[in-house]
């Protein structure tokens, strides 16, 4: 049972910007990482800012993620530092809504 999740948006816009490759690479990179699970997510609603990745339960929202960012995000998932450069650009009220949905178990 995972203690933390790396949720990678897989809706149309994020996919068009490489979210499938991000999901695959994160899954590969974090293979064997204890208590971490990489999962696809239907949509976070911030399509213009994608690809979007949300870390849960730490509630860190990464947007505009690219392939070279994967190592840093994986390091964060394993207990490292937050990747600050990817945390800006998403409406705070949307973040709050999504985090509430995640708290309600929607993932």
């Amino acid at each position, binding site marked *: 049972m995972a203690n933390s999740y790396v949720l990678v948006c897989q*809706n*149309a*816009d994020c996919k068009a910007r490489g979210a499938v490759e991000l999901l695959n690479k994160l899954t590969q990179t974090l293979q064997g990482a204890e208590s971490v699970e990489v999962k696809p997510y*239907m*949509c*976070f*609603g*911030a*399509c*213009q800012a994608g690809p979007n990745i949300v870390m849960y339960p730490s509630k860190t929202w990464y947007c505009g993620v690219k392939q070279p960012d994967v190592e840093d995000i994986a390091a964060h998932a394993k207990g490292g530092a937050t990747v600050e450069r990817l945390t800006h650009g998403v409406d705070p*009220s*949307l973040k709050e*809504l999504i985090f*509430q*949905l995640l708290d*309600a*178990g*929607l993932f």
Partner: protein
Amino acid sequence: MILFPEGKPTTRETFEEYRASGGYQAVEKNLDPAAILKIITDSGLRGRGGAGFPAGRKWTVAVETQQTPRYVVCNAGEDEPGSFKDRVLIEHRPHLVLEGIILASHAIGAAQAFVYLNETYHDCRERMTQAIREAEAAGYVGSLKLTIHDAPTVYVAGEDSATLEVLEGKPPMPRQKPPYPATSGLYGKPTVVNNVETLANVAPIVSHGAEWFRSFGNVNNPGTMLFCLGDEMNRPGAYELPLGTPIRRLYEELGGGLKNAARLRALLPGGPSCGFLTGDALDVGLDPDSCKAAGSTLGCGVMRFYPEGTCMVEETLKLSQFFARESCGQCPACRMETNMLTALLERIQQGKGDAGLFDQCQKVLDFNRGKGYCALINMPGPPVMSAIHLFRSDFDHHLTHGTCPSRSS
């Protein structure tokens, strides 16, 4: 009645039969455009496609937009689940619809009109093609160019601005509004997009006058409307009734009640985007104001009745899945809302979560309200939230047991 003499479709009317019953007399009156516009405005005819916008006002906006050419689109891109009124109108009374198109085109000064027709309605296409040929040969069409155009069978393809995209050869995606089609429609020109049933009312109104039309229905909602009953009823079909008629008449007298003498538990009076009513709402009037006062909407007149024993969680989930599937995907907020709502309902259905999921449904709707290009983003909310409110015990049962109330006791 106005659209069908017997209040329901019976015979497939020919050109000769239409003329013998007074057809094309409205065109033969040879009224000037302003006179037609005044009659339609005075009649109080509202659009029958679901939004209920006054037809005369829409035409006036197009006329007052100082650009040409202008266009008329007869919207038969019918793809609302359970709706078949456009199809039966064109199949049974193609000339009634066509005369309305000719009059509307004359009223707004349109040089070209389109019949935007569900691509699977082959019989309608044949009927309308023949009607156009007959009307042209008889000299009723004049210089108006009439074209039948295929409408893709996706829900949003019937949205008025999406019809324009399709007519311009593009995918069926709604446009951001304003500007509205009446000011900037097909190729950026003033375009009146009217539902088939709206246009079918035009010739009788022009023939008999606005006061005659207002003798049907009630003050705020003059005229009649076609209501579609589905297979759950003893006598499914399309029925024409004066607006304001109690639902009971449609349900009991015309529809014959539910099959197997089942008791009525719930109803959706206006298609998948309206709020549910409980089975004791049969005295509500069939008009937009009465339905609104009761907590729902009349929409385009697709009536759906649910018998006792229906699990309202399952039905609500189906409606939510429909909107998630039919969202065209161009507006992130709509895509997110319809997917989230469906996921929340699936969790409730499967008993995975707690009562906080109900609040999340409302929050998702509140967050996205009014954000999309078209009305689809506002559609999933009423059925979902009304069902949670009216049939809470079904939802609580699913949350606790993960099954329908009728399957576990």
